[in-house]
Structures are given as structure tokens and as C-alpha cells.
């Protein structure tokens, strides 16, 4: 979206004033990876989030933001270079298990495990990227899936290291029993991730990602080293999965092998796709809508045990979005903004 087309409905004076401050403001805000409108929404939402004191909602929102951040990281590969990381949960689980094992076996503090968790996920991503990405998307999807299955089998069977199905107990990030610090941490992680990812996709590398995603051959002809950028992209996305895995481990406190299950990947993927490909924030928005509403569905007494129903809804939503509205929520929001004349404020410089 260029954002340069002013709506005819806008009064002339407002438009002039807007244009006066527009360039400077947008450049300033854009340095932080936000569009003016996006920043406004975040600033409006923050006080609301930070003054929340209902424990149930705090937990739900923490989960929602966590999934949203995962969906953003997932979107970096699927939305920009068109590769589906079908073992995404395993990268997250790897980060979680690395920090968990370090804490359990070596008695490390939670924050000490942060870097190893990110590093492990990134290295695995790099290796898999080197192995499969030159071969095309379906190989990467299958291979990450195979590796995820193998990793799940390892975590179940290597009991001396991971304690298998009994669960690995992990020190929590905070000593207090309050949920609020976790929400705060998650918001910070989410903002850091968004900042990093959105600056990345606006950088030279980001242009390369987009070019590759649209037409790999054309990108290669114009001198872009497609494999290099694809592997870079893949590695970064995996590193973020490890990052969030680290938070997850110290948030939940117990790790069992199903964390790595394909089902988790599917959930992240569905959220990311419903959010819209190649938008980053779409996934976050989708998670903020979907996860609380799914929680509501769960809380209806008659449906309380129906995890299946929830996943079934996920599948159905995904199919409908895939076929009939491939742009997802972000496309919907953009088109509404365009109609109301706010379009140019929603595009970052």
C-alpha cells in the first residue's frame, strides 16, 4: 500500500495539516517499525492491558500474545518467502527444553538459559535451512516435520535428560504467584519481536525476502542471492521460536513432549494465516481475537471437554480463509481503513 492517495472525503484543511506533519511523524515512527495508526492502537491498548486485574483474563491475554508473537515469527517465513515451517512447535520446544534442561541439570537461573535457548533453535534452523531450502518449499516443510517428529520421540525416550512424559519441572521466571509480571514480560517480548521483525522486513534484506516471495526466478535474475536470504529468514524465524520457547518454559513451569507436537504448529499456523500473510501484525491481531474467543467456547459447560471442537473450528476457519479470503484479517483491516480514508496512516514509511 502506498498510502499516498488522500481520500476525497477529507476536509481540505485537515488534509493540509496532515500532510505538513505527515512526513516527519511517519519517518520518526517508522524508525521503530510502526505505522502511525499501529502505534496509536498499541498506545491505546497498553494502559488497558496494564491496568487489568482479573487473573483469568491476564492469563488468557498472556497466552494470546504469546501465540500472536509465535504467529509473527512464523509469518516471517511463510508470508514473506513462502516456506512453511511445519515443525515450528519443535523449534519452540527446543528452546524451552534447552533452558529447562540447563536449569534442571546444572541449576542455572532462568535468564541464563535465554541465550542458549535462542542459539539452539537458531542453529537447528540454520542446519535445516542449509539442507532443505535450496530444494524448495515442500522439502523444507516435510523435513522440518520429520525433524519435529524425531525430536518429539527423543524427548519422550531420552528420559534421563528430559524426564520424558513425567514432565520437566522448571523454575518460574518470577517468584510471586501473580500472573501480571508474566503478562508484562510477554508484552515486552512481543514488542521487541515486532520491532525487530518489522525493521527487518523494511530493510534491504526484507526487500529481498519480498522479491523472493513474489518471484524467485526474477529475484535471482536481479542479483539477489535467494538461498542466502531464505536461509537467513528461516534462521531468524527459528531463533524467535526459541526465544518464545524460553518464555513458555519459565511461564508454564512444566514441560512435556506434547509441546513439540504438530498440533501446536497447526494452531500457530492457523492463527498466522487467518491473520494474513506477510503482515506480521495480522497474526497478533488474530491471536488476540481467536484465543480469547476459543477460551470462551471452552468455558461453556456443555462443550468444556471438546478440545476437538476447537481444533475443528480452527481447521474450518483456515480452509475458508485460504479459499475465499487469502488476505486474512490484515487485508480486511487494510481495506476498511482505505474506505474510511485512514489508509495512509496505516502504512509505515
Amino acid at each position, binding site marked *: 500500500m502506498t498510502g499516498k492517495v488522500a481520500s476525497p472525503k477529507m476536509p481540505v484543511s485537515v488534509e493540509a495539516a496532515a500532510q505538513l506533519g505527515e512526513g516527519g511523524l511517519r519517518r520518526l515512527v517508522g524508525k521503530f517499525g510502526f505505522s502511525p495508526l499501529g502505534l496509536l492502537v498499541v498506545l491505546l491498548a497498553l494502559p488497558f492491558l496494564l491496568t487489568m486485574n482479573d487473573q483469568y483474563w491476564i492469563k488468557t491475554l498472556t497466552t494470546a500474545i504469546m501465540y500472536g508473537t509465535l504467529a509473527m515469527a512464523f509469518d516471517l517465513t511463510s508470508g514473506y518467502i513462502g516456506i512453511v515451517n511445519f515443525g515450528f512447535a519443535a523449534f519452540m520446544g527446543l528452546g524451552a527444553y534447552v533452558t529447562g534442561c540447563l536449569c534442571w541439570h546444572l541449576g542455572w537461573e532462568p535468564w541464563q538459559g535465554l541465550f542458549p535457548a535462542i542459539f539452539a533453535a537458531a542453529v537447528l534452523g540454520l542446519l535445516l535451512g542449509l*539442507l532443505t531450502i535450496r530444494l524448495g518449499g515442500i522439502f523444507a516443510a516435510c523435513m522440518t516435520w*520429520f525433524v519435529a517428529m524425531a525430536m518429539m520421540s527423543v524427548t519422550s525416550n531420552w528420559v534421563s535428560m528430559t524426564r520424558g512424559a513425567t514432565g520437566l519441572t522448571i523454575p518460574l521466571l518470577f517468584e510471586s504467584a501473580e500472573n501480571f509480571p508474566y503478562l508484562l514480560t510477554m508484552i515486552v517480548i512481543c514488542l521487541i519481536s515486532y520491532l525487530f521483525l518489522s525493521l527487518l522486513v523494511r530493510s534491504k534484506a526484507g526487500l529481498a525476502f519480498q522479491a523472493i516471495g513474489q518471484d524467485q526466478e526474477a529475484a535471482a535474475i536481479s542479483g539477489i542471492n535467494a538461498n542466502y536470504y531464505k536461509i537467513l529468514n528461516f534462521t531468524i524465524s527459528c531463533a524467535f521460536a526459541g526465544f518464545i520457547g524460553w518464555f513458555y518454559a519459565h511461564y508454564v513451569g512444566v514441560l512435556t513432549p506434547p509441546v513439540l507436537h504438530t498440533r501446536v504448529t497447526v494452531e500457530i499456523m492457523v492463527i498466522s494465516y487467518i491473520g494474513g500473510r506477510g503482515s506480521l501484525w495480522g497474526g497478533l491481531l488474530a491471536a488476540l481475537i481467536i484465543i480469547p474467543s476459543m477460551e470462551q467456547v471452552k468455558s461453556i459447560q456443555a462443550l468444556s471437554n471438546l478440545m476437538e471442537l476447537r481444533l475443528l473450528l480452527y*481447521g474450518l476457519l483456515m480452509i475458508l480463509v485460504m479459499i475465499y479470503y487469502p488476505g486474512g484479517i490484515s487485508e480486511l483491516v487494510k481495506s476498511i481503513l482505505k474506505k474510511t480514508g485512514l489508509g495512509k496512516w496505516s502504512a509505515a514509511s
Partner: protein
Amino acid sequence: MDVLREIWDFMSTAILRGGMYSLMAVGLALVFGVMNIANFAHGEFYMLGAYFGYFILTATNKLGLPQFVPPILCILGAGLGVAVVAGVIERTSFRALRKRSKGQWLMNTFLLTLGISVILQNGARLVWGGKYRGVTRMWKGDALNSLLNFGLPPDRLVAFLIAVLCIGGFVLFLNKTSTGRAIRAVSQDEVGASLVGVNLGFIHTLVFSLSGLLAGIAGASLLSVTPASAFMGTMPLYKSWFVLILVGMGSIGGSIVGGLILGILEAFATTYLSQFLGSGSQDFICLAVIITILLIKPNGIFGKAVKSAVE
């Protein structure tokens, strides 16, 4: 004698398992080769086949038919039932996507099949619950019982024979009939095929149904080995994809051989490696093999260049 016995056990396990892997992989390869769809709902066809088979078998067992009729009905009915389901899915989802999709077809269909897989799995779980539904023996009879002396489980042997029959019939169908020729034409060049009067829509539905048919037959004929349950499809799906990558995507002849290779690999892993590597040895060896293949011969053992490697 012990050595001979060991070799015999090893080979029979390998081949009997391998036949079923081939049957699954052939359907997957067909869909990938003709429609360029990476079908991740293939395991769910297997699952549906097992459920349909179970219900038909329990219903027909009560009728007092001759001993061998209920299993035959069960397998045929399951295959046809899944074929219908697969056809309906093709008509309602892939056709709609084909009309709208602008690029990235392979990735879009991959995601679509994932959605279908999630729906079928959880739908089955909702409708049929978490109970495992299986039978202890499908094929009964004295002649079959004597097979046990040779260490051959009768149900597995019959399932293997069914697999051979189905694959043989399927290969004949592809090569000798005009519809089969049309399918091969579409897999080579869609535009060219439609120019000479092949009805693309019909071929697509037919191909998807056929792959469902094969997977459904596989699910029903292994009912006594793997009881029907909602999430049973993941393993066969994993194996079939393994075979496809091993031999090269979309190669039907290759996937027949690939299924047998996988059977041998697995038998090897369980017989000789599990003492060192524990119960994860199968996964381990499969992963090691696939990484080697991808490093040395990324297009698979029998590989031609992959149709859409660029995507």
C-alpha cells in the same frame, strides 16, 4: 537354523510392512504427480478407511455370511466410501481454490490439506470418541492358521496380497485404459491434455478419489494390526511422505519400490538397532537416511527433477 529363522523373520516383516507403505505412497505420489498437491490429509483417508471398515465388518459379521465375505465387503466398502469422501473434498475445496488461487499453488494446497486433516481428525474424534475400534482377526480359516507356523501373521499376509493386487490393478489401469492415459497426460502437461479433449475437472476428481480409495483399502485391511482411532493417520502419512522424498516426488513406480525399502529399513532398525538406540530407533534411522538422500541425491533415488522445485 536360528540364523535362517532370523533372516526369514526379518524379510517377512520387512516385505509385509513394505507392501502397505507402497499402497499408501502410491496414492500420495499420484496426487502429487497429477494435481501437484502435497496432500497432508492422506493419513486421514487411511483413518477413515479403518473406521468404515470396522463398521462394515461388525455389521456384516452379524448376518451369518460365509467366513470370507465380511472382510471382503469391509475392504471394498471402506475403499469406496473413502473414495467418495475424497471426491467430495476435491470438488468442494480444491476446485474452489483452483478457481481463485493465483500462484503458490503448491503451498496453498499444502495448507488446505492440513486444514482438511485437522477437520477430519477432530471430526472423527467428536463423532466416534476416543475409543480404539479394532478386531483381533479379520481372516479366519484353517489354511490361514497354518501360516502361523511359518511366523507369518495371516492378516498381514492377506493385507500384503491385497496391496499387491491393488497396485497391480492400478498400474494396469494407468497404462492400459484410456482414462489412465488421460491421467498420465494431465500429469505431463495440463494445458496440452485439455487441448486434446481431456476433461481436467473429471480427471482431478478421479485422481483424488483413487488415492483415497487406495488409502482407504490400506486402512481397512490393516484393521486387526492398527485399530481405528482418530489420530491414527499421522504415522502412515509420515511414512508415505518419507517414501516420496526417498524415491523422488510424484514417481509412482518409485514409490512402490520405496515402500519396500522403508519396510526393510524399519525391520532393520527394530531388529538390530533398538538395543542401542531404544524405541526411537526407527525415527532415528529414517531421519539419518533422508538427510543422506537430501545431501547426496536431493531428487530422490530414482529422481527426475521435481516438477515444482522452484516454489
